[in-house]
């Protein structure tokens, strides 16, 4: 009785998954086996393992890693600081707010800010160090990407900090731990899971970035994401585009599998206490 009604509730979600997740995945896989003329082939896969695409893959990973690392370095102290403010929820809302604004709008805003005659260059000029080329550099790409992803890093870290019982912190102080030692020996280990989910929430989308890569980095940085876009929209080689997508999906699945489970015992254990 119960399980039947539960199954009924799952129907809309199940349909959604089939139509928008499973079917596209099958299609992508199907297209990856076709050449540009629609014939069966495995050539796309052998092509992926040539230096051009491997380099692109490595570059994608490298930038995703860089974006994740910088986001973490920015987000962790921010999450700590927010958790110690008086009006936590307000501050949290303010940091998360930008993520509600459309990605394209934000990208265009940065184009304006960073352009040759934009306010940033005006300021640099006033300081006597400008104007400089800001747009289409590694720096601007990294900056904008981090700006966009940082809320997704702050949120899980903040939550994991909030989950730590204040008496654990008091206990650490009680046993002689300074603020720093408490941070290192108690807060860091207990927020490991928050850090992990934050990294996942940033790294995976960063791996397939193409919009801001295009807009901010121009053609300077070619990642797997931009290559897919290129193949689908410019060269019309859907087979190769799909092959890259298949590899991205596999990579994401692997990352999910590898970062899941390990060490998740902490939080579970903590809750049971």
């Amino acid at each position, binding site marked *: 009785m119960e399980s039947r009604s539960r199954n009924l509730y799952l129907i809309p979600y199940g349909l959604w998954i089939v139509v928008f997740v499973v079917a596209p995945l099958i299609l992508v896989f199907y297209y990856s086996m076709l050449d540009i003329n629609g014939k069966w082939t495995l050539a796309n896969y052998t092509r992926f393992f040539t230096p051009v695409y491997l380099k692109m893959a490595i570059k994608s990973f490298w930038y995703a890693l860089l974006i994740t690392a910088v986001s973490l370095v920015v987000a962790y102290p921010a999450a700590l600081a927010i958790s110690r403010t008086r009006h936590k929820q307000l501050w949290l809302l303010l940091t998360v707010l930008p993520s509600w604004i459309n990605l394209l709008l934000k990208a265009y805003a940065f184009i304006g800010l960073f352009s040759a005659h934009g306010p940033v260059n005006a300021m640099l000029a006033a300081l006597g160090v400008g104007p400089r080329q800001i747009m289409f550099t590694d720096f601007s790409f990294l900056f904008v990407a981090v700006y966009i992803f940082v809320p997704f890093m702050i949120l899980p870290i903040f939550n994991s900090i909030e989950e730590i*019982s204040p*008496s*654990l912190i*008091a*206990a*650490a*102080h*009680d*046993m*002689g*731990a*300074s603020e720093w*030692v408490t941070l290192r*020996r*108690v807060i860091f*280990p*207990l927020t490991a899971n928050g850090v992990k989910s934050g990294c996942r929430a940033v790294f995976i989308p960063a791996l397939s970035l193409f919009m801001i890569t295009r807009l901010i980095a121009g053609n300077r940085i070619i990642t797997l994401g931009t290559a897919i876009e290129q193949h689908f929209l410019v060269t019309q080689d859907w087979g190769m585009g799909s092959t890259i997508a298949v590899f991205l999906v596999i990579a994401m699945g692997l990352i999910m599998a590898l970062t899941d489970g390990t060490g998740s015992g*902490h939080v579970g*254990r*903590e809750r*049971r*206490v």
Partner: protein
Amino acid sequence: MDDIIVRFENVTKQYDNDPPVLTDISFELERGKFYTLLGPSGCGKTTILRLIAGFTEPTMGKIYLSGQDVSSVPASKRQVNTVFQDYALFPHLNVYENVAFGLRVKRMDRPTIDAKVREALRFVNLIGLENRGVAGLSGGQQQRVAIARALVNEPQVLLLDEPLSALDLKLRAEMQYELRELQQRLGITFVFVTHDQEEALALSDEVFVLNNGVIQQRGTPIDIYDEPVNRFVADFIGESNIVPAVMVADGLVEFLGRRFECVDGGFRPDEPAEVVIRPEDLEVTTVEQGKVQVRVDSLLFRGVHYEICCYDDDGNEWLVHSTKRVKVGDRIGLYFDPDDIHVMRIGETEAEFDRRLESYATQGGVADGVQIA
């Protein structure tokens, strides 16, 4: 003076604009004694512990540890350790590492840490559980890890915040023995918080009864039980029969329209007062021999005794603990001796109580069974 380990001097604690949690509290704790803070929920017990440990600062007044003003000494530098109400064991560390935490923070060398941790674990009977995660432990085991973790730092004062409240009755009684024995073995000061009055009376050298952020009374368990200074203490510590009375003269009190001999004094002539008689001090007897005549209303078997609820002709309720069997509806007499009566001045504070006793004693009154602190 050297024997005083903790001293509160006119300490007031207030959060924001709320009414003060503690109001002008002063007391001294001696080395090597077992103290209990007893009071209803929200009366400020935990706040006192947090002030001693250094997790919070007094709004007014000063706190001294071993004679030194500690207002600028952070918690991490105080020779005080706490056993938290929820134990606060580190979930990411096993039993051994939880206990070793304080020693690692102090950068002791490995062999020293190992020796100390093992000794502490032996102390609380946890040898063999070193590598277990703390979540899998029973309540009693967790509590013992928390105690070992605190003791391994060799504190001068151990603060325990309702450490037994999460345990079942049997384990609780066992741990009470263990704690008392531990304190005597170590010879350090324990400050134990509870809202269980039986626990407080059983364990302590001295009990502080708190209410609304004020110390109502401090003294040995016997003092507090036999000589409650006011209605709150009498009510909170054990069960009592409290009836309105008039103190006619020293040693003579009038209640229920009759005069009874008693051992209290130092009141104004004909001063209104309250009389406390403990249920176990009332003796069931015949109507003729009783000093008070009552009708049995209900009866509860409590194992060691019957708890008998009666009403007198004026409608006052009388609670009696007796091993004698009576029947509901019986008319019986209740007998008590003069020293079973304890007369309380209405609204008297502890300081006033002490002063009255002293003046009454020096006047040569019958200060029988009354100890002057």
